[in-house]
């Protein structure tokens, strides 16, 4: 039992304590101060921002802008909690286009530091100098000052020892600050930025075009390597740059994600970008990217956390998909050799119904569209998100001993006799080891793995069949029966409707027995039973992966149905394979993420011969 007089009594906290607690949420570390001050400067319509940091922000953070400035009275109000110029009623929250709005930044910082603000509004003769220590105004005097505002935060956390203890090493804290600086410098290339550490000018970035800013921050080599992303998806616009490979040594520092130019962090959206890049990465590490999302303010909520780094979208999945698609399309487009892509016949003109889903994303009010399935044309995330156990016995017919085989290299195009008129020469394709196709390009040689190329084609075909148009299905003269073990019955039952869409007509004829009445057009004759049993086995194996059953089924179908390594192909078959491959969404990678082709460039070949 607690004695009555020992019981802690409930009492209102003194304001100074409240302020310090609240400050902890906004101002966790020096980098957060830098961020808040930069945002204020941006909201003040500045054209140049100069930042001075001493001792990783412990002793001084100064942010100087040439924005609209504040008068003396505005300054004192700004120090009061929830004072903001950016919001006057609650409804304004839904229309926010400014960075700050909570009115917490300055008071929070003021509560835990010695703050000095010098500001002179445009057109005013004289500025004001305001000094605050631990939240108490100590001085407010007119002073001579340039137009704009300079905020100096000294001795951060001098009155919050606990917080001070939690600060990391100077190097780490400064890295955080530099990251914030980089974020904003990337988002606002049109502004001039300077960053000083002590008296050393680390960055001096004049107003520049976005690509110029990339080069300044990452170096010309990296900037040149970056692939532009430009993708409009309903109300969401995805732009920016991505470099899937060059950041292995870089760690996670150089991922920059913005929403309406506000730096944000989102595990989920990061993952969208990572998975989009994953198949293109040759080594581990993270991709380097600068990705800007643009969305109307009523589509998301930034007011989740005082630091505003987290965002909630009304349509998380849709954003994930759009981001994934934007990045994947950009990389894939940049990597498909133009020649190969051109060789494929043009894709069919999109019919009207394919865009209905997209239109829904554009037109429907946000609250009605929790998630809209994305039309395939925009590359819904599907390829590499399908986890498969690394070894699948009998899955791939990789040649056992390629060296032991004889190389038969037969040009399959008709030998041309006499001069050939320009453009009349048919494309030449060779097959080697009965496994790889080689197609000469103007710029080199493309090597294509026939099995996984076909796998990609069948995978997309199966998905189309399940999502849109059922596959045509050839009825069998001799229905084939098969039986499964009891444990597999639930899987088969889950699969039946999907199998039907894929062109397999399967009827139960007993408790564990089934009969195949029809198979998808193009499935090898008499292979129906083996194929279906293989598909069931694979479908069962991937049951725990959590992937969409349709994707699992499509992958299983593709793997089982694709032409195997070691199978000789006719010229026409090879040509068709290549044509169809480059009509797929993802000619680069098989559904399991393996590369489908490799180009040996002319340059590389020339190097062999020291040319």
């Amino acid at each position: 039992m607690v004695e009555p007089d020992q019981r802690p009594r409930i009492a209102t906290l003194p304001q100074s304590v409240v302020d310090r607690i609240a400050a902890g949420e906004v101002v966790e570390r020096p980098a957060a101060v830098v961020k808040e001050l930069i945002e204020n400067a941006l909201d003040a319509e500045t054209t140049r921002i100069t930042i001075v940091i001493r001792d990783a922000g412990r002793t001084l953070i100064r942010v100087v802008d040439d924005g609209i400035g504040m008068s003396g009275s505005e300054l004192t109000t700004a120090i009061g909690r929830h004072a903001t110029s950016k919001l006057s009623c609650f409804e304004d929250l839904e229309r926010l286009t400014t960075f700050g709005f909570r009115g917490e930044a300055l008071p929070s910082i003021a509560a835990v530091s010695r703050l000095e603000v010098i500001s002179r509004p445009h057109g005013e003769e004289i500025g004001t100098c305001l000094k605050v220590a631990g939240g108490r105004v100590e001085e407010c005097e007119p002073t001579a000052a340039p137009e704009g505002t300079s905020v100096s935060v000294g001795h951060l956390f001098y009155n919050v020892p606990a917080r001070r203890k939690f600060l990391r090493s100077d190097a780490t804290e400064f890295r955080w600050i530099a990251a914030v600086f980089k974020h904003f410098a990337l988002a606002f290339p049109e502004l001039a930025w300077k960053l000083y550490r002590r008296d050393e000018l680390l960055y001096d970035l004049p107003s520049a075009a976005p690509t110029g800013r990339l080069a300044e921050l990452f170096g010309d080599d990296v900037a040149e390597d970056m692939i532009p992303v430009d993708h409009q998806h309903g109300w969401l616009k995805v732009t920016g740059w991505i470099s899937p490979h060059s950041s292995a040594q870089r760690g996670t520092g150089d991922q920059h994600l913005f929403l309406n130019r506000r730096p944000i962090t989102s595990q989920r959206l990061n993952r969208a970008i990572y998975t989009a890049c994953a198949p293109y990465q040759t080594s581990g590490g993270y991709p380097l990217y600068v990705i800007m999302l643009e969305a109307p303010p009523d589509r998301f909520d930034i007011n989740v956390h005082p630091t505003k780094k987290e965002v909630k979208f009304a349509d998380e999945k849709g954003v994930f998909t759009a981001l994934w698609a934007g990045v994947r399309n950009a990389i894939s487009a940049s990597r498909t050799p133009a020649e190969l892509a051109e060789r494929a016949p043009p894709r069919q003109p999109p019919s009207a119904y394919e865009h209905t889903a997209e239109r829904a994303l554009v037109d429907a009010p946000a609250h009605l569209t929790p998630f809209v399935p994305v039309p395939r044309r925009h590359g819904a995330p599907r390829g590499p998100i399908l986890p498969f156990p690394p070894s699948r016995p009998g899955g791939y017919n990789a040649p056992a001993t390629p060296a032991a085989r004889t190389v038969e290299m037969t040009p399959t195009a008709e030998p041309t006799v006499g001069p050939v008129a320009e453009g009349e020469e048919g494309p030449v394709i060779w097959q080697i080891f009965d496994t790889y196709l080689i197609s000469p390009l103007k710029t080199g040689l493309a090597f294509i793995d026939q099995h996984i190329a076909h796998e990609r084609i069948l995978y997309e075909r199966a998905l189309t069949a399940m999502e849109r148009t059922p596959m045509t299905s050839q009825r069998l003269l001799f229905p084939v029966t098969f039986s499964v073990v009891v444990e597999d019955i639930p899987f088969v039952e889950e699969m039946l409707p999907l199998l039907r869409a894929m062109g397999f007509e399967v009827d139960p004829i007993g408790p564990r027995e089934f009969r195949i009445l029809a198979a998808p057009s193009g499935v090898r004759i008499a292979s129906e039973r083996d194929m279906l049993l293989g598909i069931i086995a694979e479908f069962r194996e991937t049951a725990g992966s959590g992937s969409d059953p349709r994707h699992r089924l499509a992958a299983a179908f593709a793997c089982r149905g694709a032409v195997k390594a070691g199978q000789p192909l006719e010229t026409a078959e090879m040509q068709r394979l290549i044509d169809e491959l480059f009509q797929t969404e993802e000619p680069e990678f098989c559904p399991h993420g393996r590369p489908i082709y490799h180009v040996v460039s002319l340059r590389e070949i020339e190097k062999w011969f020291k040319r």
Partner: protein
Amino acid sequence: MKFSFSQLSMLKGLQRIIGAVPSKMPMPSLGNIHLSLEGKTLSLTATDLEVTVTSRVELIESDGTGSVLIQAKRFQELVRELPDVPLEIEIQEPLKIFLKGEGVGVYTLPGGDPVEFPELPQVDAKLTFNMPAENLKRMVSKTVFAVSRDEMRPILTGLLLQMRPGEIRMAATDGHRLSRILRKDIEYTGEPRDVVIPMKAFSLLMRNLEDGDTPEIGIAETRSSFSTEEQRVITRLIDGQYPKYESVIPESNPNRMTVRTDDFMSAVRRVAIFASQLSRQVKVALDKTSMRLESEDPELGGRAEEEVSVEYVGEPVEIAYNAVYLMDVLKQVDTEEVVFELATSNDAAVIRSAEQQDNEDFLMLLMPIRLR
């Protein structure tokens, strides 16, 4: 060993067997032709181990007996280029083949030891019967299109030959379509027997059969032979159980469509141009007096529609077929009109010539594509 012959007779003999020389050689000796001299007869043999073809070449003169292997391709090329004059071959130890003739030079080919050649298969025929070449050719040509090209199920890559007292049948199916022809005018008195013969044997045989020939067909346990005066084709039989095709032939499809074969064929050919590259689907809609054909290419765009007048007895029905299969079937019909016996859009169509030849019954089955 020495013999002389006319260029033409040797060339003919070579042409009969050269098709059996495998293009990809599992063993090097198969690239050779086995020459064997016995009295006045020279036998040429080539084999790919599955099918063995022997042809006889009439000689002008001969001396000695024996055998030798000769490079198949080189020898044939050489004989083809020689003028039609008497030629002489002499084989000398150690295995050199000299060829010379009046007005031509001297050619030396390396010879091979006949021991390296696979032993020639013997056919201990339990059943034999004779069949006019015309009939054999016709039966093969009406069924061969339905033979499966896919090695997945080897039994379907051969032609089924069924011997019944007073009746010989041939059938082929790839599981999507079927063709069956039977003749009652062939004398067969043996026991009923079914064998499946590899396609390659027939294509070699057909190439060289001449009208008027009456090959003797011999059936042994694992092989069968087709022999005429000039040649003998011996083939391995395909092992396994051929599907019981008789049970899938519908006995009483209620609907009956009669159409001019050429009209139907040319309409399908045109409409097929717009069929999907993948499924080759052509839709057939039948009404009392007309058949509407439709196709649409979802990959490349475009569609086609044709109308053909027909005589149709039955309920209106829509059925889809693979256009390639449909054309294959129509190609086999050599009468002015063709009859389709149909049931629902899921059932096999029975296709027959409007008039059957005497002593013959020929029908084809075609499974539809699911309508979508």
